[in-house]
């Protein structure tokens, strides 16, 4: 496998070339050095990595996690980084008007992020032809690896306009996916209700889950409508359940499992489990996995005379 250092170099070269040749006006990638750092200080803040009891006075440290950066000048390509802390799914920026205003974009994607591109195009939110996708061959992110990385089938991006990293040797892991979900679904409904009641009690309605999700692109979310009020804005039990269940349903058969919602939640609620359970149902009942096959017709917005009707009584 190519070392991350070399991939970073190739990513920067690619970015430089694209901008110098005028192929794109902005490259959306991960990075952190430069403007968003004072001249004498280190880059982004360390993630939450703390010493154990064995070393009570060891200083806090950690590799800075790269943050989303928007490179518009070739000389800024140096800011780009690629490593196993490139968590963010950058495709979320493709539907934001401030970013669209910058012009034609190149976006750096891992295989999981790339699935968003497939769905976004199916839903007419992006024009795939006017977007330049740079795929990164990925061995997983996070230390320890994020749950979503176990059993990943898309280590090598499949539809990128160019891919960086060695494709050989990047075999899919055979580890079973979503063991936490299996554990949850093995519980009784009453136990699961109690689980989510406890989790949602911490929700403050910050909507980080929504804002970080590439597929939550509605100009005016149903939670923000007040004529009538469909979902109470309060961070109460009722308001929180209403929000999270509605959002999960609005993502049913669309969510590609990037896990950004869980990562973004400041209260540590494992929101992705809700989406995963609906993704499982989608696969079992409709044989459909969002973002995997660009030719597959989405579950919603399509019908055929062969659709089963045995649930109509």
């Amino acid at each position: 496998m190519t070392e991350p250092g070399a991939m970073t170099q190739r990513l920067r070269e690619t970015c430089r070339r694209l901008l110098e040749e005028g192929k794109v006006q902005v490259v959306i990638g991960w990075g952190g050095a430069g403007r968003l750092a004072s001249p004498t200080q280190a880059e982004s803040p360390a993630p939450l990595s703390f010493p154990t009891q064995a070393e009570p006075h060891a200083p806090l440290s950690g590799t800075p996690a790269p943050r989303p950066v928007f490179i518009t000048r070739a000389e800024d390509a140096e800011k780009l980084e690629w490593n196993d802390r490139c968590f963010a799914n950058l495709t979320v920026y493709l539907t934001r008007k401030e970013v669209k205003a910058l012009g034609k974009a190149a976006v750096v994607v891992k295989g999981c992020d790339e699935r968003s591109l497939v769905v976004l195009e199916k839903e007419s939110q992006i024009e795939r032809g006017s977007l330049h996708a740079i795929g990164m061959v990925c061995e997983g992110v996070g230390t320890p690896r994020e749950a979503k990385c176990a059993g990943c089938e898309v280590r090598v991006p499949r539809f990128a306009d160019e891919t960086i990293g060695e494709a050989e040797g990047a075999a899919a892991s055979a580890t079973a996916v979503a063991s936490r979900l299996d554990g949850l679904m093995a519980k009784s409904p009453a136990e699961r209700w109690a689980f989510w009641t406890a989790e949602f009690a911490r929700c403050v309605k910050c909507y980080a889950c929504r804002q970080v999700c590439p597929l939550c692109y509605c100009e005016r979310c149903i939670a923000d409508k007040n004529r009538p009020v469909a979902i109470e804005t309060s961070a109460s039990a009722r308001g929180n359940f209403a929000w999270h269940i509605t959002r999960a349903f609005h993502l049913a058969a669309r969510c590609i499992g990037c896990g950004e919602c869980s990562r973004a939640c400041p209260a540590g609620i494992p929101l992705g489990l809700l989406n995963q359970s609906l993704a499982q149902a989608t696969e079992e009942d409709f044989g459909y996995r969002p973002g995997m096959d660009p030719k597959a017709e989405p579950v919603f917005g399509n019908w055929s005379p062969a659709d089963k009707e045995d649930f109509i009584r």
Partner: protein
Amino acid sequence: MSAIIPVAELGELVAGWIGAGKLVAAPVAVGDRLLYQQLASADQAVFDARRRPANSIKEFLFPRHEPLFRYRIEGRGIELSEVAPEEREQIVIGAKPCDAAALPILDLVFNWDFEDGFYTARRARTTVISLACAAEDEACFCTSVGLGPEDEAGSDAMLFDLGDGRFAVRAVTEKGKALFGERQAEPPAPRPGPEPKFDAARVGRYLASHFESPLWKELTLACLGCGACAYTCPTCHCFDMVDEGNAAGGVRVKNWDSCQFPLFTLHASGHNPRSVQPQRQRQRLFHKFVTYPQKFNAVLCTGCGNCERNCPAGLGVLAVLKAIDGEAMNQDAKEPVQA
């Protein structure tokens, strides 16, 4: 009675307060993070001087969702009734100094000409026992806003982790003395805290004269417009008021709100003075480092770093301020400021 308290005794004290019917809040382990929460039992509390909870203690004085009054609709008449106030005493223990220091800052706005009785009543009932910091991370910047890892602002008493399972306690106010009696440890050798990461005065000066600046667009592209920063911030206090109920009546509530949401300033007419994210990010910086200081002589920030740590895009105020300080330094170099 020693001013040195072993952690077990601290636990017993907390259990005693809970047993006496007081509300007690402390950092609690939730997955891989600490969160301030109301304790069901003393053994939930985590007293770790090297970690910072991912939320703040403001919610014990300024809840995320607070009923203001009830209304009943009877034909064409309305009946209003007060919500029964919380009477129980409240203790927050293990607060970081950057959380405690937020309270005197919030006192200023909640008492400005009109007293917000909901906040002041809780404030009066609350005792804050902070835990001085034994470490910091790269997101911390308390020293850049005039505070420090052992600053006593807002604390009624302060605990110092001696590193061996024991804590030294110092009472700071009468409320603190009421809880700990005459225990008064000598403070350990002061820790310097993080290196200052920007010059607050220089930044305030620059901000005040650069309301319109291309920097805002450039620095804030990564901002996704969620409320993670505002809601985990010890000093952010913007709120919304909504009616929740049905045709028979309901309750008017005060809910946290964030200036980063697109609809925050949307007029019913459709006009939105802050229709794009750079304007909203600018507002956040301005409110904290220009508006609040101009009005109340206090920066609306304690340098806790929660915004930076919780932002999905890593874009807390620190990131933006460091960039602005860099710009301000460049500008001062070109046009030196007359002192």
